[in-house]
């Protein structure tokens, strides 16, 4: 155990030096490190949100919203397909998770089935091959009834796409809040995790991502009012929408919009020139401008409705054709809400509503306090451990203490390289690792003492101490590692930080206790042997 091949000594020394090199940037300010030559490592330990301050928001996407949207568009597609094929139908509507339609002529059912199967899209891709279809078209209980039903796999792909689109949109909206390095990632099946370092007031962030901001322009029903439609039943193809302005007021609007918000190319907050109220001015893209122009041309003197997230913002009367492709939206905005809505319109609508299911925000002052408290505890705890082993084991204790310092340096180096964030529980994990790393040394040295008492020669005792203790060390560290892995899997934010430092610490502490300390002891033995033939173990 005490013989080290030359290459091993070199490898161990190199590992320690590399660790030192990678931990080095943390001793300097960010500006200094950026001025360093390229070949020097420049990655610093990244601090978790609880230390640097910032917001952690977990958003949950409304999957039912995605399903409903899909069914709505399937219904529209069904209508268009059947009309184009000149197949008569009745009772087209969304029912129990599928689109139901009745074909008027029994002899056209087969033709309709063939036509509607044209809507089916295969899933999967060229590499993985087909993974089934996104929807199924089946005959219903009655001979004339056809049902279009989304498949489970189709729904999964829809949700995945919707999450992807939501992440893009959320990122675009967040980017308007500043240049901080916010991260937006998918978590689990229907969740999005937003981490925004440095942000303290989350009100605007939440206002920006709290609305889907789906804007559309609708035709208002010519003769039936909203109230009448609510009292009876809306005619097919029309839907009753509540007003965003007046409590209780409703409008009867055509379901299929004239133009949608995705046809906007720009939206800016501004002020109405006459009333001086905050408004939003917008511009359509070319096709949007053409469609909207044609619509206003044909409907001069009649109202149209501007709908945001199913609520009617306003229903102005068209005084003259709007051909320029730009317009404005009014509707009792505040300066702030107009600004937020403009951002939302510019960055696009969310495919489904996002709800905040978890929020953890730490202000910068608490973060700074935590850093201070954490480093103080780290220094005091670390020094206490060093003094303890130094006192208990003399020269060998110093070797162990050096091993502990190298251990801490290595943990910092590994975390800097991996980009793992240091959290407050992470600091606790680091301190605890050092406390527990002492255990490895204690096991070895106590064993050496015991072997000496049993009358073994010093060299044999040292050798036996390391050999025997290593198995016990491995046993004890492996079980702690198992717990740390479970914690990582369990954990959100801070707990993960604890698990990460603990796991890294387990590997580095085994390395330092078993290898670095052993090397130091071996070198000591070699230096002593030169001087005298009798070795007294200073332990």
């Amino acid at each position, binding site marked *: 155990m005490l013989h080290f091949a030359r290459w091993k000594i070199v490898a161990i020394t190199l590992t320690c030096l590399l660790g030192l090199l990678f931990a080095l940037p943390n001793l300097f300010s960010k500006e200094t490190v950026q001025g360093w030559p390229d070949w020097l490592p420049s990655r610093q330990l990244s601090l978790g949100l609880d230390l640097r301050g910032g917001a952690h928001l*977990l958003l*949950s996407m409304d999957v039912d919203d995605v399903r409903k949207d899909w069914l709505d568009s399937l219904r529209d597609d069904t209508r268009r397909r059947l009309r184009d094929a000149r197949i008569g139908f009745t009772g087209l509507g969304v029912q129990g998770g599928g689109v139901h339609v009745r074909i008027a002529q029994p002899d056209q059912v087969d033709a309709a089935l063939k036509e509607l199967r044209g809507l089916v899209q295969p899933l999967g891709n060229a590499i993985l091959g087909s993974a089934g279809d996104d929807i199924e078209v089946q005959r219903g209980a009655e001979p004339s009834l056809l049902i279009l039903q989304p498949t489970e796999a189709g729904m999964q792909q829809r949700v995945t796409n919707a999450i992807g689109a939501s992440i893009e949109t959320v990122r675009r909206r967040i980017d308007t809040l500043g240049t901080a390095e916010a991260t937006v990632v998918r978590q689990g099946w229907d969740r999005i995790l937003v981490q925004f370092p440095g942000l303290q007031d989350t009100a605007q962030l939440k206002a920006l991502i709290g609305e889907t901001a789906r804007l559309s322009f609708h035709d208002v029903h010519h003769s039936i009012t909203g109230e009448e439609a609510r009292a009876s039943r809306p005619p097919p193809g029309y839907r009753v929408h509540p007003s965003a302005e007046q409590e209780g007021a409703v409008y009867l609007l055509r379901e299929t919009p004239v133009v949608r918000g995705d046809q906007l190319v720009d939206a800016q907050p501004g002020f109405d020139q006459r009333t001086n109220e905050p408004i939003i001015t917008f511009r359509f893209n070319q096709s949007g401008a053409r469609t909207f122009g044609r619509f206003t041309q044909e409907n001069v003197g009649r109202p149209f409705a501007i709908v945001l997230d199913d609520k009617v913002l306003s229903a102005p009367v068209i005084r003259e054709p709007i051909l320029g492709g730009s317009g404005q939206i009014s509707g009792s905005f505040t300066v702030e809400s107009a600004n937020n809505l403009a951002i939302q319109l510019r960055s696009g609508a969310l495919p489904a509503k996002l*709800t*905040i*299911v*978890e*929020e*953890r925000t730490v*202000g910068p*002052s*608490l973060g700074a*306090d935590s850093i201070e*408290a*954490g480093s*103080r505890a780290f220094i005091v*705890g670390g020094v*206490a*451990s060093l003094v*303890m*082993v130094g*006192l*208990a084991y*003399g*020269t060998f204790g110093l070797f162990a203490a050096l091993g502990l310092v190298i251990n801490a340096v290595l943990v910092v180096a590994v975390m800097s390289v991996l980009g793992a964030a240091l959290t*407050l*529980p992470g*600091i*606790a994990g680091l*301190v*605890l690792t*050092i*406390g*527990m790393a*002492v*255990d490895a040394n*204690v*096991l070895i040295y*106590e064993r050496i*003492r*015991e072997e000496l*008492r049993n009358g073994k020669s010093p060299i044999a005792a040292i050798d036996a101490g390391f050999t025997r203790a290593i*198995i*016990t060390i491995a*046993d*004890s560290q*492996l*079980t*702690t590692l*198992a*717990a*740390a892995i*479970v*914690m990582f*899997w*369990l954990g*959100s934010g801070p*707990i993960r930080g604890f*698990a990460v430092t603990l796991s890294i610490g387990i590997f580095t502490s085994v390395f330092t206790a078993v290898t670095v300390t052993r090397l130091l002891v071996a070198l*000591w033995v070699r230096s002593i042997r030169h001087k005298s033939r009798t070795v007294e173990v200073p*332990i």
Partner: protein
Amino acid sequence: MFPNFKGFDFFPHDTRIPFMRFKAICLWASMIAMALSLGLFFTRGLNYGVDFKGGSIIEVQSKSGPADLADVRRSLGSLGLGDVQIQEFGAANDILIRIEQQPGGDQAQQEAVKKVTAALGDDYVQRRVEIVGPTVSGELRTTGTIAVVVSLFAIILYVWFRFEWQFAVGTIVALSHDVLLTVGIFSLFQLSFDLAIVAALLTILGYSVNDTVVVSDRIRENLRKFKKMELNELLDLSINETLSRTILTGVTTFAVLLALFFLGGEVIRNFTLAMLLGILIGTYSSIFIAAPLLGYTGIKRDWSGTEKSKKSSAVASRA
């Protein structure tokens, strides 16, 4: 080249403390403590934090002078948010507000915090906000429970694999004892029990099994060495032989945790408290529960089939 000085050997090495003489008392005491903990858990319950119960925590700091708790209590009491706990947090100008979970799903929690922030006005700076909605708290409860159970099983499987089943039984009982007692103390004093405490419990499991493994290792070694020794005597010997290590490691870890407890800040105080308790309980359990149980479950004494036994029999005869 190297400084040469001898260490202080703090602990006497030839202790012959008859631990096994206390085993009946200790096992009974532990069993009663475990039963009491279980009883507390089921009657008094745990003071679950927002992670597991849902709801919100707001930590605020007064901008000028010490915070007026009575005033805050008055202004928040009228908001109709149900149970609102207000307490000083670490310093006189720091307060922690806990709002119970609001009916009406995830969005309702957000509204409640908005109301509180508005009611507090400009006199306070927000230091921390934690809002956990009903969906997430439910999930965290499940994963928290699974995590503890899975770690227990992983550790037990490992011990079973490395030692004989008798050791695994001792470990199961010792670990369950540690978890139960820590939970019991949290229930008794109604300390806030959140995700961090579960992490602490897992660390305690790791530490306690570490202790148990060291003692078990030595027991196994001595079983091979001293074939004729009476089992209780052998267990005593093994515990005594590892006692200096148990105490030195325990004291170091405890000292480090004390530093964290007093200097690490209010946010992780409960977390370190749980670990301090766990280290004490874990050290106790590996000496007074895991080892004595071996005396009851009986253990394989005949190792003549294994290759090591021949070598060690020589040592045994010397002893």
